[in-house]
């Protein structure tokens, strides 16, 4: 019996010790979380204790007028992975007013070859882990998190409401959306949302073999939307047959992702604070350090009806003359890029072959290619499939029951 008593006493002792430890840890965490107090106004004073002194210096050097406007800006970052987390980190350090983060994934140890997340965060949701770190880095930034997959029917409406209503002033849209997702479905969902609400956004991506990346600025009606053509990717000149894919889905490098995030935020800052020249498309080929640039015009036959609406609106708007001149002067190769129209003229039947994706237009920028051949516009059925579904009068309920009973 005395052994049990001894053990019980030991338990009590250990419990109190543990409690003391916990309290201490909590206090330490609380102290750590308040590494500094919130700052009401950005100061340009050059002292070691001012977190904004080097940013405000951009004003003094005549790069940016009124840098502090950044505090009125709200940016939505969709996808908080290798590119998105670094993007959010950079914007936070730049003192952005509000960040809205979307992701449905958890932090995993397999993510540790990329930047930002730390091994102790494994298991946490990416948005939650990111929000903690970002608030610690800069408590002035308002951070809102959404932990769901935007492509499903239920969540998409919430996503639409958030990007169109959760701007700096309640009820206003966000200033910019940055797509840092890793799949076509999510990009198309963002594209649909931004076309619907006429919101400007940047698409970004890193190839699955980790040796190329790109950013693309999409202004609905003005530049090509993501559905206007097959995705434009950086040609890596790797023979597909030598590309080993067995046993893996994707490779990644912190370098390519960091560079892409840097391009993305740099252009976001230029757009938000109105300095320099914002790139419409900027690619990065890591194998030979080549950076293709170009502008894509919208496709007048785009499948997204909201894209067509935005195109009509844009055509009736007066154009700033300066811009046209800039494009011609800088990229004479692409000034007459009417590829969208040619794309429609392509009348290849929809067949299962056509193995090699080949550029169907001649004036895509050097070093770029379409991810695959554009779909045929013809509504004819393929010669191979002879049957089509018939619009008979069987009700959906009957069909569901029939399927279930098979």
């Amino acid at each position, binding site marked *: 019996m005395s052994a049990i008593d001894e053990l019980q006493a030991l338990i009590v002792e250990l419990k109190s010790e543990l409690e003391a430890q916990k309290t201490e840890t909590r206090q330490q965490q609380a102290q750590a979380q308040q590494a500094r107090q919130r700052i009401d106004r950005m100061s340009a004073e050059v002292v070691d204790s001012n977190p904004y002194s080097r940013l405000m210096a951009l004003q003094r050097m005549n790069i940016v007028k009124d840098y502090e406007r950044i505090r009125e800006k709200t940016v939505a970052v969709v996808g908080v992975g290798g590119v998105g987390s670094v993007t959010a980190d950079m914007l936070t350090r730049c003192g952005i007013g509000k960040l809205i983060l979307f992701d449905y994934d958890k932090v995993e140890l397999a993510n540790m070859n990329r930047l930002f997340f730390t091994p102790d965060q494994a298991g946490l949701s990416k948005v939650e882990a990111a929000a903690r770190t970002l608030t610690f880095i800069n408590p002035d930034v308002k951070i809102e998190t959404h932990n769901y997959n935007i492509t499903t029917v239920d969540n998409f409406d919430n996503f639409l409401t958030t990007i169109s209503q959760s701007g700096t002033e309640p009820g206003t849209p966000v200033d910019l959306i940055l797509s840092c997702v890793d799949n076509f479905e999510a990009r198309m969902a963002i594209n649909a949302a931004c076309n619907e609400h006429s919101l400007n956004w940047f698409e970004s991506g890193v190839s699955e073999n980790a040796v190329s990346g790109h950013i693309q600025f999409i202004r609905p009606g003005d530049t090509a939307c993501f559905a206007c053509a097959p995705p434009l990717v950086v040609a890596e000149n790797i023979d597909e047959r030598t590309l080993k894919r067995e046993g893996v889905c994707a490779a990644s490098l912190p370098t390519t992702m960091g560079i892409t995030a840097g391009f993305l935020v740099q252009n976001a800052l230029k757009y938000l604070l109105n300095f320099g020249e914002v790139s419409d498309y900027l690619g990065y080929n890591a194998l030979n350090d080549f950076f293709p640039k170009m502008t894509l015009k919208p496709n007048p036959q785009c499948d997204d009806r909201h894209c067509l609406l935005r195109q009509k609106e844009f055509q009736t708007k007066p154009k700033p003359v300066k811009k046209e001149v800039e494009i011609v002067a800088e990229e004479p190769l692409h000034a007459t890029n009417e590829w969208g129209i040619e794309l429609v003229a392509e009348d290849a039947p929809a067949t299962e072959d056509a193995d090699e994706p080949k550029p169907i237009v001649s004036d895509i920028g050097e070093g770029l290619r379409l991810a695959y051949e554009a779909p045929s516009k013809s509504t004819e059925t393929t010669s191979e499939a002879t049957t089509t*579904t018939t619009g008979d009068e069987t009700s959906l309920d009957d069909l569901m029951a029939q399927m279930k009973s098979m």
Partner: protein
Amino acid sequence: MVDDSTRKTLSNIPLLQTRAGPREKDIWVQRLKEEYQALIKYVENNKQSGSDWFRLESNKEGTKWFGKCWYMHNLLKYEFEVEFDIPVTYPTTAPEIAVPELDGKTAKMYRGGKICLTEHFKPLWARNVPKFGIAHAMALGLAPWLAVEIPDLIEKGIISYKEK
């Protein structure tokens, strides 16, 4: 890429006509009917050719799909639950078919057990919008995936036969 038998299977699945996603409530019902018609025909074809390999059903709205698929290996039947959501951008983007119970068992999967499709699948799908439906995604996506992955997983001892 697409072998002759897949090509033949594919050509016997009815093509769909209505371009509608789940957000377009009025015409989505028509698309859903076409999906079911194509699926029913595909399953019938499979039964006739002795290669029956899956069953699917959906929620009332046709936005969430679930069912079973199975693979025969050395005369033993290996069965798996299959599920997927219809994305808001469907049919422009294909559904992402998932086999959650194999999540973490093979590298050819994305989070949540979504199968990693070949680089040929998406271009092929894109060229056939809106004619391809769920039945085509099963035939072109899940069927070849199972044919490659399951024998490999069995051989490695990662999955084993369960008496039903």
